[in-house]
């Protein structure tokens, strides 16, 4: 059930969905997000840095993503890590549930009719 809080953000754009999905498993830096998105989509959807940071800026302003602490002091200072917030995780779950419904409907309508038996 989609709450009133989440409803205005659904459905998610492909870029937003992929970014949130890439952060669902672990905190990642920008380049890590780009690589994870390419991996998840088997190379079919590639995010450029411009698209990525435009979306990250929007997601951070909307409270779906926040900056995480650096993993080690030896990390490149230009490398910043991002993580999902509780709200972002809830939104991703709601979108996945919505997509599951779409897939269920599609399977139902596209089902090839079973061939009739010859009498």
């Amino acid at each position: 059930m989609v709450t009133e809080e989440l409803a205005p953000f659904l459905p998610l754009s492909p870029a937003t969905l992929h970014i949130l999905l890439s952060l669902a498993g672990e905190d990642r830096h920008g380049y890590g997000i780009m690589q994870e998105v390419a991996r998840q989509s088997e190379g079919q959807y590639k995010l450029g840095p411009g698209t990525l940071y435009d979306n990250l800026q929007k997601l951070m302003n909307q409270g779906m993503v926040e900056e995480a602490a650096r993993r080690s002091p030896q990390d490149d200072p230009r490398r910043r890590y991002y993580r999902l917030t509780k709200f972002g995780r809830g939104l991703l779950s709601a979108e996945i549930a919505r997509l599951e419904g779409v897939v269920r409907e599609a399977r139902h309508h596209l089902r090839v009719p079973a061939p009739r038996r010859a009498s």
Partner: protein
Amino acid sequence: MTRALYRSLLWLHPPAFRREFAGEMLWIFDEATAAGGPLGLLADGLASLARQWVVRCGAWKVLAGLAGALLQVLALASLSHTRALPAGALPLPRSLDYYDLEFSRGLALLIILLVCGTGFRACVNLSRRRS
């Protein structure tokens, strides 16, 4: 060369976005160009530049206002050239007198300036709020 070009593209982004993400974007450029060609990244940088100024900063409102005002000026200018009427034709109504047209043109120019000024102030305010 391509790195300098990409850096220039980043420098042209709105200040708030540049301060927040330019360092990381340049780092990704360095990492990604080692793995593949830089052309895709340059195209993405250009698209990002347009998106940041036009969509996120609201400059499209200024452009739309400017286009509207320009249309007004052009329409009025074309009207002013229709004054040479053939003999026997009815005279133009008083409302389309030469001085009225000039006044309208001046008014349209004033509107253009007002729209540009308001849009510019909105952009600057938005940029300050984000920073």
